[in-house]
C-alpha cells in the first residue's frame, strides 16, 4: 500500500516508529534526547506526546542504554534504543557484543532479545569527530547481531519495521546525510524481506554498496552511462549481517565485473568480506580482481576534508571503468 506521496528518509523512519508502536504496546523507545526534544535529528518528534509512558529520555550513558534494553526485553518489552551517533556505539560495545548479541546463545534459548538499536552514521554533514564514523565491519564481525542499513525512505520504513519485529537484536544504521536529502515513496508494507535489492539495472558492471554510498554509486552509474556508455547496475546490500549471499551472488554473476563501495575505512572493512565471498563463490564466473572504493585507513578527518576521505563519484567511476576495460 502506497501512501501516495514522497517523504524524506527521516519521515519514513518516524512513521515506522509510530506504526511499530501502534502495532504493539510492548514497543518502547529510549535514548538521549529522544523524548522532549524528539531526538537531535527529530526522528522521534511527537512520539512522547503520542505514546505517553513509552518514550524515555535517558541519562548520557550508551552502555547503560544498551544494557537496560537487554533487561527491558527480558522483562517482556520490545525496546527501540537510540544511540545518538553510531561512533558512540563503542561506549556500549561490551554490552552489544558480549550481552545483546549473545543472550540467546548463552541462555540456550531461554531468553531472546527483540531489541533494535538505532544509530545515525555516515559522512557529508561536516560533523564533529566520531559522529560520522562507519563501523559496520566491526558490527558484522559480531555473531548473533543483525545489521541493517537503509538508503531510501521505503527501506528505512520496511527495514525498521522488520528490525523491531525481529525476535533477535538488530543494529539499525541510519544514514544521517540522507535523512532530509533523499525523498521517495513510502510503502507501508511491512512484510518485505531484508534481502539485497537492485537499485539500478545495468549489464556491464555491478556496484555493490550500502547506506549513503549507494547514492554515490547511483550518481556514478549515471555518469558512467552518459559519459562512458557503460551500464552499471547498483546493488544495495540493505542487510549487512547476515549478508544476503544469494542476492549478492546472483547480481554479481549476471554482470561479471564488480566494484564494492563503502564509506568505512578500507582495511578490514565490510568490502573485504564481500570480495572474499564473491571470489569464493564465483571465482570461475566473475572477472577478478574485484576492486574496492573505500575510505583510506586514517581516522575520519575534520569536516572540511571529508570530501577527500569519502568515496567520491569520480573514484567509483574510475574503478568501474577499470573493472570494465581491464587495467
Amino acid at each position, binding site marked *: 500500500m502506497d501512501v501516495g506521496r514522497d517523504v524524506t528518509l527521516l519521515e519514513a523512519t518516524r512513521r515506522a516508529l509510530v506504526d511499530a508502536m501502534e502495532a504493539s504496546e510492548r514497543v518502547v523507545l529510549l535514548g538521549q534526547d529522544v523524548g522532549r526534544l524528539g531526538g537531535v535529528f527529530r526522528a522521534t518528534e511527537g512520539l512522547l506526546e503520542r505514546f505517553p509512558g513509552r518514550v524515555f529520555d535517558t541519562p548520557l550513558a550508551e552502555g*547503560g542504554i544498551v*544494557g537496560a534494553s537487554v533487561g527491558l526485553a527480558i*522483562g517482556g518489552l520490545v525496546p527501540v534504543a537510540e544511540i545518538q551517533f553510531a561512533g558512540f556505539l563503542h561506549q556500549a560495545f561490551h554490552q552489544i557484543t558480549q550481552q545483546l548479541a549473545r543472550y540467546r*546463545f548463552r541462555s540456550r534459548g531461554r531468553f531472546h532479545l527483540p531489541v533494535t538499536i538505532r544509530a545515525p552514521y555516515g559522512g557529508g554533514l561536516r560533523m564533529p569527530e566520531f559522529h560520522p564514523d562507519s563501523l559496520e565491519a566491526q558490527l558484522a564481525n559480531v555473531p548473533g547481531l543483525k545489521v541493517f542499513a537503509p538508503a531510501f525512505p521505503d527501506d528505512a520504513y520496511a527495514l525498521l519495521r522488520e528490525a523491531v519485529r525481529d525476535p533477535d537484536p538488530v543494529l539499525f544504521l541510519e544514514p544521517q546525510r540522507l535523512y532530509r536529502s533523499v525523498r521517495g515513496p513510502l510503502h507501508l508494507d511491512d512484510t518485505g524481506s531484508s534481502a539485497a535489492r537492485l537499485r539500478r539495472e545495468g549489464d556491464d558492471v555491478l556496484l555493490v554498496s550500502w547506506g549513503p554510498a549507494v547514492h554515490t554509486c547511483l550518481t556514478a552509474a549515471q555518469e558512467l552511462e552518459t559519459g562512458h556508455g557503460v551500464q552499471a547496475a547498483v546493488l544495495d546490500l540493505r542487510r549487512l549481517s547476515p549478508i544476503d549471499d544469494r542476492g549478492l551472488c546472483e547480481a554479481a554473476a549476471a554482470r561479471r565485473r564488480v566494484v564494492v563501495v563503502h564509506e568505512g575505512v578500507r582495511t578490514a572493512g565490510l568490502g573485504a568480506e564481500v570480495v572474499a565471498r564473491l571470489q569464493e563463490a564465483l571465482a570461475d564466473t566473475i572477472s577478478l580482481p574485484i576492486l574496492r572504493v573505500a575510505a583510506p585507513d586514517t581516522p575520519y578527518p575534520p569536516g572540511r576534508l571529508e570530501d577527500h576521505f569519502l568515496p567520491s563519484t569520480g573514484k567509483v567511476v574510475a574503478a568501474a571503468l577499470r573493472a570494465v576495460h581491464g587495467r
Partner: protein
Amino acid sequence: MTATRDWAREWAEGDGQPLQLLGHDGRILRPEVARPPDDLVREGLRLMLLSRAIDERCTNLQRQGRLGLYAPVLGQEAAVVGSHLAIDPAVDWLVPASREQPAMLRHGWPLDRMLALMLGRFEAARIPDDVRMLPRQQSIGSQLPHAVGIAWSASIERRDDVTLAYCGDGATSEGDFHEACNLAGVMQVPLVLVVINNQYAISTPIAKQTRAARLADRARGYGFPGVAVDGNDLLAVHEVTSQAVERARSGQGPTMIEAVTYRLGFHNTSDNPSLYREPAEVARAEELDPVARVVAYAETQGLVDAAAVEAQVLEARAEVATALERALTYPTPGPDDVFRHVSAEEDQRASE
C-alpha cells in the same frame, strides 16, 4: 516487621560500621529488632550448608579433572542466602553475578541442572522457563544494567516484581555499575542491589579497588538509600534486604546494600590466594565464619542441636551426590550445538 526503622538512614547517620544483629558468637546484639521466623532461619541454615556441600564437591571434582573452572561462595553464604530469603522466587527476578549458587538454587534452578552447567552439559542446564533468573555473568558488572532494565520493565508495566541483583566489590569499579545505578535512581526502579564485598577481586584487595570508606556510600550519589551490613550475619542481611524489597515493591525505588564479608576460599580453582594474602588474615576471617554464627544462634534459640546440624551436613552432601548423578546422565553437547541458539532463524532452520 521493622516498618518504623529506616536502616539506611540509621546507617548513614551512624559511624559507618556495617549493621550487625548477631554477635560473632551468635548472640543477639539488638534485642529490640524483631527476629525472623524460625522456619526462615532453618531454611537459611539448610541453604548455607547445601552451599558448602556444593563448594566441597565441585572443588573435588575439579581437582580430579572432571569439571572445569569452579568458583566457590565459601564464606559469603550469609550474604547471599540472607538477601535472597527476602524475595519471593515465584514473583521476583534474580540477577546473579556468578558465584551466588545458593540464591540460584532457592530461586528454582534445580541443583542437577546447575551441576550440569559446571559439567559442560549446557543444554540440560538451561534455566527453566518459569524461573525468573538470568544466567551467571562472566563479564564483571555487565549484569547490572540488565537488572535495571528488568526492574524498569516492571515499573513500565506496573507489575510488582522486584529485581534482586548481585555484584562483587570489584564490579563496583566498572562503568557498568555506575551507569546502572544512575539509571536506576533516575527511573526509580524496583531494584535491590546487593554488593558482595568479599574484600578481593582476584588478588586485588578492596583498598586498591577504591578509596571509598564504604561502597554503600556510593548510593547517595545516585539519589537512593545505601546501607552497609555485616555480610556474615544472616539476620542482619535478611533484615536490611527485606526492608529494601519492601521499599522497591511499594514504588519507593532502589536500594544499595553492601554486604561486608570475606572470600574464605580461592577466587576460582585456578587461583592460588597464598600468593597475595597472609595466612593470619585468612585465619582472622575464618573466625567470623557465617555458618558457625548462624548455627550458634540457632542452637541458642533451640532451633537445632549439634546432632541435627551434623545430620544436615550429611543430608546436604547426599543431595549433592544424587544431583550429580542425575547431572551426569544429561547429554554432553555435540558439534551441532555450536550452531544452535544463535538466532531464531537458525533455530527454526535446524528444527525443520
